[in-house]
Protein backbone atom coordinates (compact mmCIF):
# COMPACT_ATOMS: atom_id res chain seq x y z
CA UNK A 1 0.00 0.00 0.00
CA UNK A 2 1.34 3.40 -0.92
CA UNK A 3 1.59 6.13 1.67
CA UNK A 4 -1.92 7.66 1.71
CA UNK A 5 -0.71 11.09 2.80
CA UNK A 6 1.45 11.49 -0.28
CA UNK A 7 -1.38 10.96 -2.74
CA UNK A 8 -4.34 11.99 -0.63
CA UNK A 9 -7.46 12.22 -2.78
CA UNK A 10 -10.29 12.78 -0.32
CA UNK A 11 -9.93 14.25 3.14
CA UNK A 12 -12.64 14.70 5.76
CA UNK A 13 -11.64 16.89 8.68
CA UNK A 14 -13.76 17.15 11.83
CA UNK A 15 -17.06 16.56 10.05
CA UNK A 16 -20.17 16.68 12.19
CA UNK A 17 -23.87 16.83 11.48
CA UNK A 18 -26.94 17.13 13.63
CA UNK A 19 -30.52 16.42 12.59
CA UNK A 20 -32.58 18.35 15.12
CA UNK A 21 -31.39 17.01 18.46
CA UNK A 22 -29.85 13.87 17.02
CA UNK A 23 -26.11 13.87 16.49
CA UNK A 24 -25.78 11.69 13.38
CA UNK A 25 -22.05 12.23 13.05
CA UNK A 26 -20.07 13.71 15.94
CA UNK A 27 -16.54 14.13 14.66
CA UNK A 28 -15.38 12.34 11.58
CA UNK A 29 -11.90 12.67 10.12
CA UNK A 30 -10.32 10.29 7.66
CA UNK A 31 -8.73 10.36 4.27
CA UNK A 32 -8.69 8.21 1.18
CA UNK A 33 -5.50 7.92 -0.84
CA UNK A 34 -5.43 7.77 -4.61
CA UNK A 35 -5.94 4.23 -5.88
CA UNK A 36 -7.06 2.86 -2.52
CA UNK A 37 -10.14 0.85 -1.67
CA UNK A 38 -11.36 2.05 1.72
CA UNK A 39 -14.38 0.61 3.48
CA UNK A 40 -16.59 2.43 5.91
CA UNK A 41 -18.34 -0.04 8.18
CA UNK A 42 -20.40 0.09 11.32
CA UNK A 43 -23.78 -0.95 12.70
CA UNK A 44 -27.00 0.46 11.27
CA UNK A 45 -27.39 4.11 12.16
CA UNK A 46 -23.67 4.61 12.62
CA UNK A 47 -23.68 7.44 10.09
CA UNK A 48 -22.18 5.74 7.02
CA UNK A 49 -24.77 6.83 4.47
CA UNK A 50 -24.89 10.27 6.11
CA UNK A 51 -21.15 10.51 5.52
CA UNK A 52 -21.76 9.69 1.84
CA UNK A 53 -24.48 12.33 1.66
CA UNK A 54 -22.12 14.92 3.10
CA UNK A 55 -19.22 14.04 0.78
CA UNK A 56 -21.44 14.19 -2.30
CA UNK A 57 -23.18 17.41 -1.28
CA UNK A 58 -26.64 15.94 -0.67
CA UNK A 59 -26.56 17.39 2.83
CA UNK A 60 -24.40 20.07 4.38
CA UNK A 61 -22.31 19.30 7.48
CA UNK A 62 -22.86 21.36 10.63
CA UNK A 63 -19.11 21.71 10.97
CA UNK A 64 -15.88 20.42 9.49
CA UNK A 65 -14.36 20.48 6.04
CA UNK A 66 -14.09 18.12 3.10
CA UNK A 67 -11.49 18.43 0.40
CA UNK A 68 -10.92 16.55 -2.81
CA UNK A 69 -7.53 16.82 -4.49
CA UNK A 70 -6.78 19.63 -2.06
CA UNK A 71 -9.83 21.67 -3.14
CA UNK A 72 -12.69 22.21 -0.67
CA UNK A 73 -15.98 20.52 -1.53
CA UNK A 74 -18.00 22.32 1.15
CA UNK A 75 -20.92 24.29 -0.21
CA UNK A 76 -20.79 22.78 -3.69
CA UNK A 77 -23.97 21.33 -5.15
CA UNK A 78 -24.18 17.56 -5.84
CA UNK A 79 -23.84 18.03 -9.59
CA UNK A 80 -20.76 20.22 -9.11
CA UNK A 81 -19.14 17.62 -6.87
CA UNK A 82 -19.91 14.93 -9.46
CA UNK A 83 -18.37 17.29 -12.00
CA UNK A 84 -15.08 17.03 -10.12
CA UNK A 85 -15.13 13.26 -10.34
CA UNK A 86 -16.77 12.24 -7.05
CA UNK A 87 -19.65 9.95 -7.97
CA UNK A 88 -21.84 7.84 -5.71
CA UNK A 89 -24.34 5.03 -5.89
CA UNK A 90 -27.36 4.76 -3.64
CA UNK A 91 -28.19 2.27 -0.91
CA UNK A 92 -31.71 1.87 -2.19
CA UNK A 93 -31.64 0.87 -5.86
CA UNK A 94 -31.85 4.09 -7.83
CA UNK A 95 -32.26 3.97 -11.59
CA UNK A 96 -34.06 5.81 -14.37
CA UNK A 97 -36.81 3.19 -14.16
CA UNK A 98 -38.73 3.65 -17.38
CA UNK A 99 -35.68 4.09 -19.63
CA UNK A 100 -33.78 1.26 -21.26
CA UNK A 101 -30.54 -0.04 -19.79
CA UNK A 102 -28.54 1.69 -22.54
CA UNK A 103 -30.37 5.00 -22.01
CA UNK A 104 -29.64 4.76 -18.29
CA UNK A 105 -25.91 4.57 -18.95
CA UNK A 106 -26.13 7.26 -21.67
CA UNK A 107 -27.70 9.55 -19.09
CA UNK A 108 -24.83 8.72 -16.76
CA UNK A 109 -22.44 9.80 -19.52
CA UNK A 110 -23.93 13.31 -19.51
CA UNK A 111 -20.78 14.84 -18.03
CA UNK A 112 -18.69 13.56 -20.94
CA UNK A 113 -20.90 15.13 -23.61
CA UNK A 114 -20.06 18.55 -24.99
CA UNK A 115 -22.88 19.52 -27.35
CA UNK A 116 -24.76 22.58 -26.15
CA UNK A 117 -28.28 23.84 -26.78
CA UNK A 118 -27.41 25.81 -29.91
CA UNK A 119 -25.55 22.96 -31.60
CA UNK A 120 -28.42 20.58 -30.80
CA UNK A 121 -31.18 22.92 -32.01
CA UNK A 122 -29.26 23.64 -35.21
CA UNK A 123 -28.72 19.89 -35.70
CA UNK A 124 -24.98 20.21 -36.34
CA UNK A 125 -23.24 17.01 -37.48
CA UNK A 126 -20.92 17.10 -34.44
CA UNK A 127 -23.96 16.30 -32.27
CA UNK A 128 -24.65 13.04 -34.12
CA UNK A 129 -20.98 12.08 -34.04
CA UNK A 130 -20.84 12.65 -30.30
CA UNK A 131 -24.03 10.63 -29.83
CA UNK A 132 -22.50 7.63 -31.63
CA UNK A 133 -19.31 7.92 -29.61
CA UNK A 134 -21.25 8.03 -26.33
CA UNK A 135 -23.40 5.05 -27.37
CA UNK A 136 -20.24 3.01 -27.97
CA UNK A 137 -18.88 4.09 -24.62
CA UNK A 138 -22.15 3.12 -22.92
CA UNK A 139 -22.02 -0.33 -24.54
CA UNK A 140 -18.44 -0.75 -23.28
CA UNK A 141 -19.46 0.11 -19.73
CA UNK A 142 -22.35 -2.35 -19.87
CA UNK A 143 -19.98 -5.07 -21.05
CA UNK A 144 -17.63 -4.10 -18.24
CA UNK A 145 -20.23 -4.79 -15.54
CA UNK A 146 -21.60 -7.82 -17.39
CA UNK A 147 -24.87 -6.35 -18.64
CA UNK A 148 -23.83 -6.45 -22.30
CA UNK A 149 -26.86 -8.38 -23.47
CA UNK A 150 -29.39 -6.23 -21.66
CA UNK A 151 -29.09 -2.93 -23.58
CA UNK A 152 -32.67 -2.63 -24.78
CA UNK A 153 -34.48 -3.88 -21.69
CA UNK A 154 -36.25 -1.45 -19.42
CA UNK A 155 -34.34 -0.80 -16.22
CA UNK A 156 -37.25 -1.72 -13.95
CA UNK A 157 -37.70 -5.03 -15.78
CA UNK A 158 -34.23 -6.26 -14.77
CA UNK A 159 -33.82 -8.78 -11.95
CA UNK A 160 -32.72 -7.22 -8.67
CA UNK A 161 -29.04 -8.19 -8.84
CA UNK A 162 -28.73 -6.72 -12.32
CA UNK A 163 -30.45 -3.52 -11.21
CA UNK A 164 -27.70 -3.14 -8.60
CA UNK A 165 -25.08 -3.61 -11.34
CA UNK A 166 -26.82 -1.05 -13.54
CA UNK A 167 -26.62 1.44 -10.66
CA UNK A 168 -22.86 0.93 -10.60
CA UNK A 169 -22.70 1.19 -14.42
CA UNK A 170 -24.48 4.58 -14.30
CA UNK A 171 -21.98 5.84 -11.71
CA UNK A 172 -19.04 4.50 -13.74
CA UNK A 173 -20.40 6.28 -16.81
CA UNK A 174 -19.95 9.60 -15.01
CA UNK A 175 -16.21 8.94 -15.16
CA UNK A 176 -15.41 8.99 -11.44
CA UNK A 177 -11.96 9.51 -9.95
CA UNK A 178 -13.50 8.57 -6.62
CA UNK A 179 -16.40 6.11 -6.62
CA UNK A 180 -18.58 5.87 -3.53
CA UNK A 181 -20.51 2.62 -3.36
CA UNK A 182 -23.31 2.46 -0.80
CA UNK A 183 -23.95 -1.20 0.05
CA UNK A 184 -23.52 -2.42 -3.53
CA UNK A 185 -24.10 -6.10 -2.73
CA UNK A 186 -26.97 -5.74 -0.26
CA UNK A 187 -29.61 -8.25 -1.22
CA UNK A 188 -27.29 -10.15 -3.55
CA UNK A 189 -26.62 -13.85 -3.00
CA UNK A 190 -23.13 -15.28 -2.41
CA UNK A 191 -22.47 -16.02 -6.09
CA UNK A 192 -23.56 -12.54 -7.16
CA UNK A 193 -21.39 -11.04 -4.43
CA UNK A 194 -18.37 -12.99 -5.62
CA UNK A 195 -18.82 -11.80 -9.18
CA UNK A 196 -19.32 -8.26 -7.92
CA UNK A 197 -15.97 -8.52 -6.15
CA UNK A 198 -14.39 -9.35 -9.51
CA UNK A 199 -15.97 -6.20 -10.98
CA UNK A 200 -14.62 -4.20 -8.05
CA UNK A 201 -11.13 -5.55 -8.80
CA UNK A 202 -11.52 -4.43 -12.44
CA UNK A 203 -12.68 -0.98 -11.31
CA UNK A 204 -9.60 -0.76 -9.17
CA UNK A 205 -7.40 -1.85 -12.06
CA UNK A 206 -8.74 1.14 -13.98
CA UNK A 207 -7.25 3.39 -11.33
CA UNK A 208 -10.57 4.40 -9.78
CA UNK A 209 -10.35 5.01 -6.05
CA UNK A 210 -13.24 3.46 -4.13
CA UNK A 211 -14.92 4.27 -0.86
CA UNK A 212 -17.23 1.46 0.13
CA UNK A 213 -20.03 1.20 2.64
CA UNK A 214 -20.91 -2.43 3.12
CA UNK A 215 -22.30 -4.92 5.61
CA UNK A 216 -20.97 -8.02 3.88
CA UNK A 217 -17.84 -8.68 5.93
CA UNK A 218 -16.42 -11.32 3.63
CA UNK A 219 -16.30 -8.76 0.84
CA UNK A 220 -15.09 -5.88 3.04
CA UNK A 221 -12.19 -7.89 4.44
CA UNK A 222 -11.20 -9.21 1.05
CA UNK A 223 -11.28 -6.07 -1.10
CA UNK A 224 -10.29 -3.26 1.28
CA UNK A 225 -6.88 -1.75 1.75
CA UNK A 226 -8.11 -0.02 4.87
CA UNK A 227 -11.25 -0.16 6.93
CA UNK A 228 -12.75 2.68 8.93
CA UNK A 229 -15.22 1.61 11.61
CA UNK A 230 -17.95 3.98 12.72
CA UNK A 231 -20.18 3.57 15.72
CA UNK A 232 -22.73 6.15 16.83
CA UNK A 233 -21.23 8.85 14.67
CA UNK A 234 -17.59 8.38 15.73
CA UNK A 235 -14.63 6.45 14.41
CA UNK A 236 -13.85 3.64 16.83
CA UNK A 237 -11.10 2.03 14.78
CA UNK A 238 -9.31 2.21 11.48
CA UNK A 239 -6.60 0.17 9.87
CA UNK A 240 -5.89 -2.73 7.56
CA UNK A 241 -8.54 -5.51 7.56
CA UNK A 242 -6.47 -7.92 9.69
CA UNK A 243 -6.12 -5.30 12.44
CA UNK A 244 -9.80 -4.49 12.35
CA UNK A 245 -10.77 -8.12 12.70
CA UNK A 246 -8.74 -8.33 15.91
CA UNK A 247 -9.79 -4.97 17.36
CA UNK A 248 -11.70 -5.63 20.61
CA UNK A 249 -13.98 -2.60 20.39
CA UNK A 250 -14.93 -3.45 16.84
CA UNK A 251 -15.69 -7.03 17.74
CA UNK A 252 -17.86 -5.84 20.56
CA UNK A 253 -19.71 -3.23 18.52
CA UNK A 254 -20.13 -4.99 15.27
CA UNK A 255 -18.04 -7.92 14.18
CA UNK A 256 -19.09 -10.60 16.64
CA UNK A 257 -21.35 -12.25 14.11
CA UNK A 258 -18.87 -11.88 11.30
CA UNK A 259 -16.21 -13.80 13.21
CA UNK A 260 -18.56 -16.56 14.13
CA UNK A 261 -19.53 -16.91 10.50
CA UNK A 262 -15.90 -16.84 9.43
CA UNK A 263 -15.11 -19.85 11.61
CA UNK A 264 -17.30 -22.39 9.89
Amino acid at each position, binding site marked *: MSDPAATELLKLDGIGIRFGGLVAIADLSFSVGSGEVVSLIGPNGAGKTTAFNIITG*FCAPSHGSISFRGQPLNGLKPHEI*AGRGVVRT*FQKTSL*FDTLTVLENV*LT*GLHRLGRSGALQ*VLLGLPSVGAEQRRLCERAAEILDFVGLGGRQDQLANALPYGEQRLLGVAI*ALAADPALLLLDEPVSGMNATETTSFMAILAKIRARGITTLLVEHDMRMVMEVSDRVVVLNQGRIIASGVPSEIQRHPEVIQAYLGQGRRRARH
Partner: protein
Amino acid sequence: MRALAPLAGLAALLAVPLVVTDQYALHILITTGIFIIAAMSLNLLLGYTGQLSLGHIGFFGIGAYVSALCSLGFQLEFTDRLVLTVAPKPVWLSFVIAVATAALFGFLIGKLSFKVRGAYFVIVTLSFAEVARLVALNWVSLTQGPMALNNIPPFTLGLSDAWQLTFYRKLPNYFLMIAIGAGAYLLIARLVRSRLGRAMVALKENESLATSVGIDVTRYLVLAAVVSAGIAGAAGSFYAHYVRIIDPDIFLFIYTVTMVIMIVTGGKGTLLGPIVGGILFGFIPPVLREVAGPELQWIIYGLIMIVVVFFLPEGIVPAVTRAWAARRGRAATASARSPAGS
Protein backbone atom coordinates in the same frame (compact mmCIF):
# COMPACT_ATOMS: atom_id res chain seq x y z
CA MET B 1 -37.12 4.32 -42.34
CA ARG B 2 -37.23 6.19 -39.06
CA ALA B 3 -36.15 9.38 -40.81
CA LEU B 4 -38.69 8.92 -43.58
CA ALA B 5 -41.78 8.54 -41.40
CA PRO B 6 -41.95 12.23 -40.33
CA LEU B 7 -41.42 13.29 -43.95
CA ALA B 8 -44.29 11.07 -45.06
CA GLY B 9 -46.42 12.59 -42.31
CA LEU B 10 -45.48 16.06 -43.47
CA ALA B 11 -46.35 15.22 -47.08
CA ALA B 12 -49.73 13.91 -45.95
CA LEU B 13 -50.43 17.12 -44.02
CA LEU B 14 -49.44 19.22 -47.04
CA ALA B 15 -51.83 17.19 -49.19
CA VAL B 16 -54.81 17.70 -46.87
CA PRO B 17 -56.11 20.86 -48.67
CA LEU B 18 -56.45 18.76 -51.85
CA VAL B 19 -59.21 16.85 -50.07
CA VAL B 20 -60.51 19.53 -47.71
CA THR B 21 -61.59 22.55 -49.70
CA ASP B 22 -64.38 23.79 -47.46
CA GLN B 23 -63.28 27.11 -45.91
CA TYR B 24 -64.83 26.41 -42.52
CA ALA B 25 -63.15 22.98 -42.36
CA LEU B 26 -59.87 24.60 -43.30
CA HIS B 27 -60.33 27.13 -40.50
CA ILE B 28 -60.87 24.30 -38.00
CA LEU B 29 -57.70 22.62 -39.30
CA ILE B 30 -55.67 25.80 -38.84
CA THR B 31 -56.89 26.63 -35.32
CA THR B 32 -56.50 23.01 -34.23
CA GLY B 33 -53.01 23.04 -35.71
CA ILE B 34 -52.13 26.15 -33.71
CA PHE B 35 -53.39 24.41 -30.59
CA ILE B 36 -51.35 21.32 -31.38
CA ILE B 37 -48.18 23.41 -31.74
CA ALA B 38 -48.85 24.93 -28.32
CA ALA B 39 -49.52 21.45 -26.89
CA MET B 40 -46.25 20.17 -28.43
CA SER B 41 -44.39 22.93 -26.64
CA LEU B 42 -46.12 22.20 -23.32
CA ASN B 43 -45.24 18.53 -23.79
CA LEU B 44 -41.55 19.46 -23.61
CA LEU B 45 -42.11 20.64 -20.03
CA LEU B 46 -44.83 18.26 -18.91
CA GLY B 47 -43.81 15.12 -20.77
CA TYR B 48 -40.03 15.37 -20.67
CA THR B 49 -39.02 17.32 -17.55
CA GLY B 50 -42.17 16.21 -15.71
CA GLN B 51 -43.06 19.73 -14.54
CA LEU B 52 -46.72 20.66 -14.91
CA SER B 53 -47.02 24.24 -16.13
CA LEU B 54 -50.70 25.14 -15.87
CA GLY B 55 -49.97 28.63 -17.12
CA HIS B 56 -48.79 27.64 -20.52
CA ILE B 57 -51.43 29.68 -22.27
CA GLY B 58 -49.65 32.69 -20.71
CA PHE B 59 -46.73 32.25 -23.10
CA PHE B 60 -49.14 31.78 -26.01
CA GLY B 61 -51.08 34.93 -25.08
CA ILE B 62 -47.94 36.99 -24.53
CA GLY B 63 -46.74 35.90 -27.97
CA ALA B 64 -50.07 36.93 -29.47
CA TYR B 65 -50.24 40.32 -27.75
CA VAL B 66 -46.59 41.24 -28.29
CA SER B 67 -46.80 40.30 -31.95
CA ALA B 68 -50.09 42.16 -32.48
CA LEU B 69 -48.86 45.29 -30.69
CA CYS B 70 -45.56 45.37 -32.55
CA SER B 71 -47.26 45.03 -35.91
CA LEU B 72 -49.85 47.69 -35.04
CA GLY B 73 -47.46 50.04 -33.28
CA PHE B 74 -48.17 51.28 -29.77
CA GLN B 75 -47.51 53.99 -27.21
CA LEU B 76 -46.30 53.54 -23.66
CA GLU B 77 -47.00 56.54 -21.41
CA PHE B 78 -44.71 56.42 -18.41
CA THR B 79 -45.36 60.02 -17.38
CA ASP B 80 -46.95 62.94 -19.21
CA ARG B 81 -43.66 63.83 -20.81
CA LEU B 82 -42.04 60.42 -21.13
CA VAL B 83 -43.87 58.63 -23.90
CA LEU B 84 -42.40 55.73 -25.81
CA THR B 85 -43.85 55.45 -29.27
CA VAL B 86 -43.22 52.32 -31.27
CA ALA B 87 -43.98 52.53 -34.97
CA PRO B 88 -45.64 49.53 -36.65
CA LYS B 89 -43.12 46.79 -37.43
CA PRO B 90 -43.27 44.26 -40.27
CA VAL B 91 -45.13 41.13 -39.25
CA TRP B 92 -42.08 38.83 -39.53
CA LEU B 93 -40.18 41.10 -37.13
CA SER B 94 -43.15 41.17 -34.76
CA PHE B 95 -43.15 37.37 -34.87
CA VAL B 96 -39.45 37.27 -33.89
CA ILE B 97 -39.97 39.80 -31.08
CA ALA B 98 -42.99 37.82 -29.83
CA VAL B 99 -41.00 34.56 -29.74
CA ALA B 100 -38.13 36.26 -27.91
CA THR B 101 -40.45 37.89 -25.37
CA ALA B 102 -42.29 34.65 -24.65
CA ALA B 103 -38.93 32.85 -24.33
CA LEU B 104 -37.78 35.50 -21.86
CA PHE B 105 -40.86 34.85 -19.70
CA GLY B 106 -40.10 31.14 -20.01
CA PHE B 107 -36.62 31.84 -18.72
CA LEU B 108 -38.00 33.72 -15.70
CA ILE B 109 -40.54 30.99 -14.90
CA GLY B 110 -37.82 28.35 -15.32
CA LYS B 111 -35.50 30.22 -12.96
CA LEU B 112 -38.28 30.46 -10.45
CA SER B 113 -38.83 26.72 -10.53
CA PHE B 114 -35.35 26.39 -9.07
CA LYS B 115 -37.03 27.36 -5.83
CA VAL B 116 -40.45 25.84 -6.32
CA ARG B 117 -41.32 22.39 -7.60
CA GLY B 118 -44.38 20.20 -7.76
CA ALA B 119 -47.61 21.76 -6.51
CA TYR B 120 -45.96 25.15 -5.96
CA PHE B 121 -44.73 25.23 -9.55
CA VAL B 122 -48.27 24.52 -10.72
CA ILE B 123 -49.64 27.39 -8.63
CA VAL B 124 -46.91 29.81 -9.73
CA THR B 125 -47.47 29.09 -13.43
CA LEU B 126 -51.24 29.23 -13.00
CA SER B 127 -50.96 32.64 -11.35
CA PHE B 128 -48.59 33.81 -14.08
CA ALA B 129 -51.20 33.23 -16.80
CA GLU B 130 -53.94 34.77 -14.70
CA VAL B 131 -51.85 37.88 -14.01
CA ALA B 132 -51.10 38.14 -17.73
CA ARG B 133 -54.84 37.99 -18.44
CA LEU B 134 -55.61 40.69 -15.89
CA VAL B 135 -52.88 42.92 -17.32
CA ALA B 136 -54.28 42.47 -20.83
CA LEU B 137 -57.77 43.19 -19.51
CA ASN B 138 -56.93 46.29 -17.47
CA TRP B 139 -54.09 48.02 -19.30
CA VAL B 140 -56.64 49.52 -21.64
CA SER B 141 -54.37 52.26 -23.00
CA LEU B 142 -52.07 49.59 -24.39
CA THR B 143 -54.19 46.50 -25.05
CA GLN B 144 -57.65 48.06 -25.57
CA GLY B 145 -58.74 45.75 -22.73
CA PRO B 146 -62.02 43.93 -23.42
CA MET B 147 -62.51 45.99 -26.60
CA ALA B 148 -59.87 43.75 -28.15
CA LEU B 149 -57.00 44.53 -30.49
CA ASN B 150 -58.32 44.36 -34.01
CA ASN B 151 -57.20 44.93 -37.57
CA ILE B 152 -54.02 43.04 -36.80
CA PRO B 153 -52.13 42.77 -40.11
CA PRO B 154 -51.75 39.28 -41.61
CA PHE B 155 -48.44 37.66 -42.48
CA THR B 156 -46.85 38.76 -45.72
CA LEU B 157 -44.24 37.02 -47.77
CA GLY B 158 -42.21 38.91 -50.27
CA LEU B 159 -38.81 40.18 -51.23
CA SER B 160 -39.88 43.68 -52.19
CA ASP B 161 -43.01 45.68 -52.94
CA ALA B 162 -42.95 44.30 -56.45
CA TRP B 163 -43.81 40.73 -55.43
CA GLN B 164 -45.64 40.17 -52.21
CA LEU B 165 -48.01 37.53 -50.91
CA THR B 166 -50.34 38.56 -48.11
CA PHE B 167 -51.84 35.73 -46.05
CA TYR B 168 -55.50 36.79 -46.05
CA ARG B 169 -56.92 33.48 -47.25
CA LYS B 170 -57.15 30.19 -45.43
CA LEU B 171 -54.99 28.12 -47.75
CA PRO B 172 -51.68 30.02 -47.41
CA ASN B 173 -52.29 30.27 -43.65
CA TYR B 174 -52.74 26.52 -43.54
CA PHE B 175 -49.34 26.02 -45.16
CA LEU B 176 -47.76 28.59 -42.85
CA MET B 177 -49.22 26.73 -39.85
CA ILE B 178 -47.73 23.48 -41.16
CA ALA B 179 -44.35 25.20 -41.65
CA ILE B 180 -44.32 26.57 -38.08
CA GLY B 181 -45.50 23.20 -36.77
CA ALA B 182 -42.83 21.30 -38.68
CA GLY B 183 -40.18 23.70 -37.40
CA ALA B 184 -41.39 23.28 -33.82
CA TYR B 185 -41.48 19.49 -34.21
CA LEU B 186 -37.94 19.47 -35.59
CA LEU B 187 -36.57 21.61 -32.75
CA ILE B 188 -38.29 19.53 -30.07
CA ALA B 189 -37.23 16.24 -31.69
CA ARG B 190 -33.60 17.35 -31.89
CA LEU B 191 -33.69 18.51 -28.30
CA VAL B 192 -35.26 15.43 -26.73
CA ARG B 193 -33.04 13.00 -28.63
CA SER B 194 -29.88 14.80 -27.51
CA ARG B 195 -27.97 14.62 -24.25
CA LEU B 196 -29.92 17.72 -23.19
CA GLY B 197 -33.21 15.89 -23.63
CA ARG B 198 -31.86 12.92 -21.70
CA ALA B 199 -30.94 15.31 -18.89
CA MET B 200 -34.55 16.60 -18.91
CA VAL B 201 -35.95 13.08 -18.72
CA ALA B 202 -33.45 12.28 -15.97
CA LEU B 203 -34.92 15.13 -13.94
CA LYS B 204 -38.39 13.65 -14.34
CA GLU B 205 -37.34 10.07 -13.66
CA ASN B 206 -34.97 10.43 -10.71
CA GLU B 207 -33.71 13.85 -9.73
CA SER B 208 -31.19 12.76 -7.08
CA LEU B 209 -29.62 10.16 -9.38
CA ALA B 210 -29.43 12.78 -12.12
CA THR B 211 -27.57 15.24 -9.90
CA SER B 212 -25.29 12.47 -8.61
CA VAL B 213 -23.91 11.90 -12.11
CA GLY B 214 -23.29 15.60 -12.59
CA ILE B 215 -26.46 16.83 -14.30
CA ASP B 216 -27.35 20.40 -13.38
CA VAL B 217 -31.09 19.76 -13.50
CA THR B 218 -32.08 23.41 -13.04
CA ARG B 219 -30.17 24.38 -16.13
CA TYR B 220 -32.05 21.89 -18.30
CA LEU B 221 -35.36 22.79 -16.75
CA VAL B 222 -34.68 26.42 -17.69
CA LEU B 223 -33.67 25.37 -21.20
CA ALA B 224 -36.88 23.35 -21.58
CA ALA B 225 -38.93 26.29 -20.30
CA VAL B 226 -37.25 28.74 -22.70
CA VAL B 227 -37.71 26.56 -25.79
CA SER B 228 -41.22 25.61 -24.73
CA ALA B 229 -42.29 29.20 -24.09
CA GLY B 230 -40.66 30.37 -27.32
CA ILE B 231 -42.62 27.84 -29.39
CA ALA B 232 -45.85 28.67 -27.54
CA GLY B 233 -45.13 32.35 -28.29
CA ALA B 234 -44.65 31.51 -31.98
CA ALA B 235 -48.01 29.73 -32.01
CA GLY B 236 -49.62 32.72 -30.27
CA SER B 237 -48.09 35.18 -32.72
CA PHE B 238 -49.30 33.16 -35.69
CA TYR B 239 -52.76 32.95 -34.12
CA ALA B 240 -52.92 36.74 -33.73
CA HIS B 241 -51.99 37.36 -37.36
CA TYR B 242 -54.36 34.65 -38.56
CA VAL B 243 -57.59 35.54 -36.73
CA ARG B 244 -56.48 39.21 -36.70
CA ILE B 245 -58.37 40.08 -33.52
CA ILE B 246 -57.36 39.15 -29.99
CA ASP B 247 -58.84 39.89 -26.58
CA PRO B 248 -57.87 38.97 -23.01
CA ASP B 249 -59.90 35.76 -23.22
CA ILE B 250 -56.92 34.32 -25.07
CA PHE B 251 -55.40 33.75 -21.60
CA LEU B 252 -58.28 31.61 -20.32
CA PHE B 253 -57.32 28.65 -18.15
CA ILE B 254 -59.48 26.29 -20.21
CA TYR B 255 -56.99 26.52 -23.09
CA THR B 256 -54.16 25.23 -20.93
CA VAL B 257 -56.43 22.45 -19.73
CA THR B 258 -57.23 21.54 -23.34
CA MET B 259 -53.51 21.33 -24.11
CA VAL B 260 -52.96 19.08 -21.10
CA ILE B 261 -55.84 16.84 -22.24
CA MET B 262 -54.30 16.60 -25.72
CA ILE B 263 -50.91 15.65 -24.29
CA VAL B 264 -52.13 13.17 -21.70
CA THR B 265 -54.52 11.34 -24.03
CA GLY B 266 -52.00 11.28 -26.88
CA GLY B 267 -49.12 10.22 -24.68
CA LYS B 268 -46.94 12.58 -22.70
CA GLY B 269 -43.24 12.42 -23.29
CA THR B 270 -43.66 11.20 -26.87
CA LEU B 271 -43.13 13.35 -29.94
CA LEU B 272 -46.35 12.23 -31.62
CA GLY B 273 -48.51 12.22 -28.47
CA PRO B 274 -49.66 15.86 -28.57
CA ILE B 275 -50.31 15.60 -32.31
CA VAL B 276 -52.48 12.49 -32.02
CA GLY B 277 -54.26 13.74 -28.89
CA GLY B 278 -54.56 17.18 -30.45
CA ILE B 279 -56.17 15.86 -33.63
CA LEU B 280 -58.62 13.82 -31.56
CA PHE B 281 -59.65 16.50 -29.09
CA GLY B 282 -59.28 19.35 -31.55
CA PHE B 283 -61.76 17.82 -33.99
CA ILE B 284 -64.23 16.30 -31.56
CA PRO B 285 -65.91 19.61 -30.55
CA PRO B 286 -66.56 20.94 -34.11
CA VAL B 287 -67.75 17.50 -35.24
CA LEU B 288 -70.06 17.13 -32.24
CA ARG B 289 -71.39 20.62 -32.81
CA GLU B 290 -72.87 19.38 -36.08
CA VAL B 291 -74.65 16.40 -34.58
CA ALA B 292 -75.48 17.10 -30.93
CA GLY B 293 -76.97 19.77 -28.70
CA PRO B 294 -74.65 21.91 -26.56
CA GLU B 295 -75.20 19.96 -23.30
CA LEU B 296 -74.73 16.61 -24.96
CA GLN B 297 -71.55 17.79 -26.74
CA TRP B 298 -69.62 18.29 -23.54
CA ILE B 299 -70.96 15.11 -21.97
CA ILE B 300 -69.72 13.14 -24.98
CA TYR B 301 -66.41 15.04 -24.95
CA GLY B 302 -65.93 14.19 -21.28
CA LEU B 303 -66.90 10.56 -21.78
CA ILE B 304 -64.44 10.09 -24.64
CA MET B 305 -61.72 11.63 -22.49
CA ILE B 306 -62.51 9.36 -19.54
CA VAL B 307 -62.61 6.28 -21.76
CA VAL B 308 -59.20 7.10 -23.31
CA VAL B 309 -57.57 7.84 -19.97
CA PHE B 310 -59.17 4.81 -18.33
CA PHE B 311 -58.23 2.25 -20.97
CA LEU B 312 -54.97 3.83 -22.18
CA PRO B 313 -53.58 5.54 -19.09
CA GLU B 314 -50.21 6.15 -20.73
CA GLY B 315 -51.84 7.64 -23.80
CA ILE B 316 -52.65 6.49 -27.30
CA VAL B 317 -49.17 6.66 -28.84
CA PRO B 318 -47.32 4.53 -26.23
CA ALA B 319 -50.17 1.98 -26.28
CA VAL B 320 -50.10 1.68 -30.08
CA THR B 321 -46.29 1.50 -30.10
CA ARG B 322 -46.35 -1.31 -27.58
CA ALA B 323 -49.08 -3.24 -29.41
CA TRP B 324 -47.13 -2.87 -32.64
CA ALA B 325 -43.88 -4.06 -31.03
CA ALA B 326 -45.66 -7.03 -29.45
CA ARG B 327 -47.19 -8.01 -32.79
CA ARG B 328 -43.85 -7.76 -34.54
CA GLY B 329 -42.22 -9.73 -31.71
CA ARG B 330 -44.84 -12.47 -32.06
CA ALA B 331 -44.40 -12.52 -35.83
CA ALA B 332 -40.63 -12.81 -35.40
CA THR B 333 -40.84 -15.71 -32.95
CA ALA B 334 -43.46 -17.42 -35.13
CA SER B 335 -41.27 -17.22 -38.24
CA ALA B 336 -38.27 -18.39 -36.22
CA ARG B 337 -40.22 -21.33 -34.89
CA SER B 338 -41.86 -22.48 -38.11
CA PRO B 339 -38.79 -24.21 -39.69
CA ALA B 340 -38.25 -26.20 -36.51
CA GLY B 341 -41.92 -27.13 -36.35
CA SER B 342 -42.17 -28.43 -39.91
